[in-house]
């Protein structure tokens, strides 16, 4: 060791974590809002990180509005929007965005169809012209429609190949049942795909693309004022669309279904012969993001299964070695997503892993320990300093608040709860919202290798289901 290194070594104390410096200053992004003359709601936040516009446009063409028998319509309709405009064919449209260096994509979820654009400022105006054409003058070509349908037939055929996807499909079917489109995969099934026409897709889109139901979420250096300038050509064209009175009155909302309640814990097993691992989903219905309990529950969940050092991961991964990772969450959303645990475990440990998960949920009913609470509080509070570095983080913040109806300072609400709640309040909250004896358990794994041990968990023999979640005859 050199002399300078020796003297340097004397200056560090390795026995414990070194003291932190003074906490850096930071602030939450500021959201500015405006309702345009057409009725479109615009929310934007300034971000100086890059000279770009990030824009999200949403309209209520979500899966929840699909008629029964037309499951998959929302995603088919969204996919068709990327298949050219009145002026441009599919490849021409792709080339036009590429020529601007813009990334553009369209997806749908339960509530909405969402278009995402990311483009450098000096190309934003041209990119917005293209986006307006995509939304307002889609091609709706027969040839394109047949091709998209053919590709979906291939996707349906491969759907059962992936155990994660099977677990998700089985879960949705058991969670929502058959009386809502949410109980089916987002791309529907062979029958609904065959039954859906191009006209269905076009009508579905047009009926939901009403100015008063459109939301624009943006981030750019110039904030709302600049975003409105870029949106002006789209706004002008939206002003020409008459708002359907009934639709305006409903504000594009749809009546959300209620998840099925099932009482005591049951295990549903989709067989996958020879699988080296079992895919597990464990949970029950819970509250929407707008419910006052959601932020507190999502904060407490950090200690149960929200981070690497949570109880579930330390036990099932770091102590037992059953899995590569395990997480839990109160999913929230606009319509009461579940509390759910998700993991993939070695086949030989399937039943034991479930027993441990149940034990951890039961044990968490009394709430986090003082040490865990201090940990979660510190982690959440200090992470805020680094969460708003990128334009994408700014856009996600605006989108989350606008779409879930949260307050502009919702991260602080979560902290306030951790700081101000008492142990008995936390226990009461968990006792009300965590139900370890009323679990829906989905196992996608090798029936022959796991069924016997699963039957010994005290929840009866596993109910056999197919890869869509429908019960198989005994």
């Amino acid at each position, binding site marked *: *060791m*050199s002399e*300078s*290194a020796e003297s*340097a*070594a004397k200056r560090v104390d*390795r026995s414990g*974590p*070194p*003291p*932190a*410096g*003074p*906490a*850096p200053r*930071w602030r939450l992004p500021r959201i500015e809002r405006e309702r345009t003359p057409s009725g479109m709601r615009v929310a934007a936040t300034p971000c*100086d*990180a*890059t000279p*770009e516009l990030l824009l999200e446009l949403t309209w209520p063409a979500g899966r929840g509005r699909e008629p029964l028998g037309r499951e998959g319509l929302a995603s088919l309709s969204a996919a068709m929007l990327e298949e050219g405009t009145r002026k441009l064919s*599919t*490849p021409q449209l*792709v*080339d036009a965005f*590429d*020529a*601007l260096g813009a990334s553009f994509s369209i997806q749908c979820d339960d509530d909405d169809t969402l278009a995402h654009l990311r*483009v450098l400022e000096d190309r934003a105006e041209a990119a917005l012209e293209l986006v307006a054409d995509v939304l307002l003058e889609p091609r709706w070509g027969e040839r394109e429609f047949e*091709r998209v349908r*053919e*590709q979906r*037939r*291939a*996707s349906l*055929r*491969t759907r059962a*190949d*992936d155990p994660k996807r099977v677990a998700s499909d089985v879960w949705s079917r058991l969670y929502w049942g058959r009386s809502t489109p949410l109980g089916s995969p987002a791309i529907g099934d062979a029958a609904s795909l065959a039954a859906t026409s191009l006209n269905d897709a076009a009508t579905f889109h047009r009926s939901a693309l009403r100015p008063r139901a459109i939301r624009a979420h943006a981030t750019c250096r110039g904030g709302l004022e600049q975003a409105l300038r870029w949106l002006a050509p789209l706004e002008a064209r939206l002003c020409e669309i008459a708002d359907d009175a009934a639709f305006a009155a409903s504000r594009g909302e749809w009546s959300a279904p209620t998840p099925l309640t099932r009482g005591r814990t049951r295990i549903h097993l989709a067989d996958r012969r020879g*699988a080296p*691992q079992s*895919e597990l989903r464990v949970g029950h219905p819970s509250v929407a993001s707008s419910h006052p309990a959601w932020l507190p529950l999502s904060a407490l969940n950090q200690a149960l299964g929200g981070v*690497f050092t949570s109880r579930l991961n330390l036990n099932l*991964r*770091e*102590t037992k*070695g*059953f899995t*590569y990772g395990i997480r839990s969450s109160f999913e929230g959303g606009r319509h009461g997503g579940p509390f759910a645990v998700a993991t*993939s475990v*070695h086949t030989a440990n399937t039943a034991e892993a479930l027993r441990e998960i149940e034990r951890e949920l039961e044990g968490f009913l009394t709430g986090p320990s003082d040490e865990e609470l201090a940990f979660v509080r*510190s*982690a959440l509070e*200090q*992470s*805020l*300093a*680094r969460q708003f*570095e*990128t334009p*994408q983080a700014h856009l996600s913040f605006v989108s989350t608040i606008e779409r879930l109806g949260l307050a502009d300072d919702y991260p602080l609400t979560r902290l306030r709860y951790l700081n101000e709640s008492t142990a008995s309040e936390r226990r009461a909250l968990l006792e009300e919202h965590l139900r370890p004896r009323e679990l829906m358990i989905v196992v996608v794994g090798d029936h022959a290798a796991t069924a016997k041990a699963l039957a010994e968990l005290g929840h009866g023999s596993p109910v056999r289901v197919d890869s869509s979640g429908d019960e198989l005859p005994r």
Partner: protein
Amino acid sequence: MQPLEFQEHVLSNGLRVLLHPASAAPVVSLHLCYHVGSAQELPGKTGFAHLFEHLLFQGSAHVSSDGHFRHITQAGGTLNGNTSFDRTLYYETLPSNQLELALWLESDRMGFFLEALDQRKLDNQRDVVRNEKRQNYELRPYAKAHEVLAAALFPPEHPYAHLPIGSHEDLESATLADVSRFFERWYRPDNATLALGGDFEPRAALAAIERWFGEIPARGGFERPARAPHRSSAEARRVVPDDVNLPQVTLAWPTPELNHADEAALELAAMVLSASRSSVLDRALTLDEVLAKSVTCGAMSSELAGRFQITATAANGVAPDRLEERIRELVETTAREGVPAGVLERMKTRARADFVRRLDNVSNRTSALALSDVMRGRPLRFVEAFEALQACDETRVVDALRRHLIEQPPAVVWVVPKGGASA
């Protein structure tokens, strides 16, 4: 593009230090890259570099077994690590007042790791890694092809003929003595680059790095495998039965290593073939003809060699031989007739936008500097590679396609439905 500001230092123990001050956000991001990966594994010890990465998160002399995750998370940070053929990267991003915490943790495991290692940790992380392999390579549809392809593409003695995840048998046989030897041999300051980015004062940060890392002794004498570009002389074909319903075809060609004069042309060629839905392969296979459900293409250069790979999943009713034949025709046509007008410019614009987006945060910029330093030999060589792509013309793209994809036979892997019931 704005120039990337950074300083370069070397401590007396050989640790290379890159400082990238950036005060726009109150964060610091530390990336410590060790120049060892699965290419350095000995026969019968595959999967070792990656298993070792897991063990380095299990504490050290002054840090408890879950301490690394616990301390960083509690301080509001994020962290992870990853292992490739050539290097192992550890990183954390924290609020800017927590720089010393990151330095304490990283220096403790560099200097004082073995004291805290025990059989329980090894057994546990071996189980975790074997579950990672099951999850990502055995359960995931088509993923079994990755290992088969590596072995088909390179001769058995080539360092890239096996994947970093390794084999169950080798992982099972790993002992504490193996782990100690691996650590002693590779985890040294003179075999690493530490890159620090974010909101800090460079002189103070350098002094802190010297304080925490300066006492860890150098080792020297690292034997590096020589650059090992490979040319294939005969077509290797493999068929992998899997629990899938549609066949998938992969064609891969060995290509030169990082920093080679053809790197930019091959990367641009991959973009021309499949970067967007209107690219050559996507357009023909998924828009005009519907032979494939999806297609991807990539040029991947590593330190010792590279590969150019095309993977397509068949559409309903399309047999793998027909799909393979059409892919070969499309590659040959592109190499013979050149790239359609305007395409190269669009792909360069796209690459420029991707480059700007990728570097929009301190963590990615710091990571890019560290990786470029270790893998390319200079911190900013990755920017030069990007500029080379921007300067590349059609002649060079076509020439690279011809020499690497037409004038040498590929390795071909078909994944087919078990029992053969498809197409």
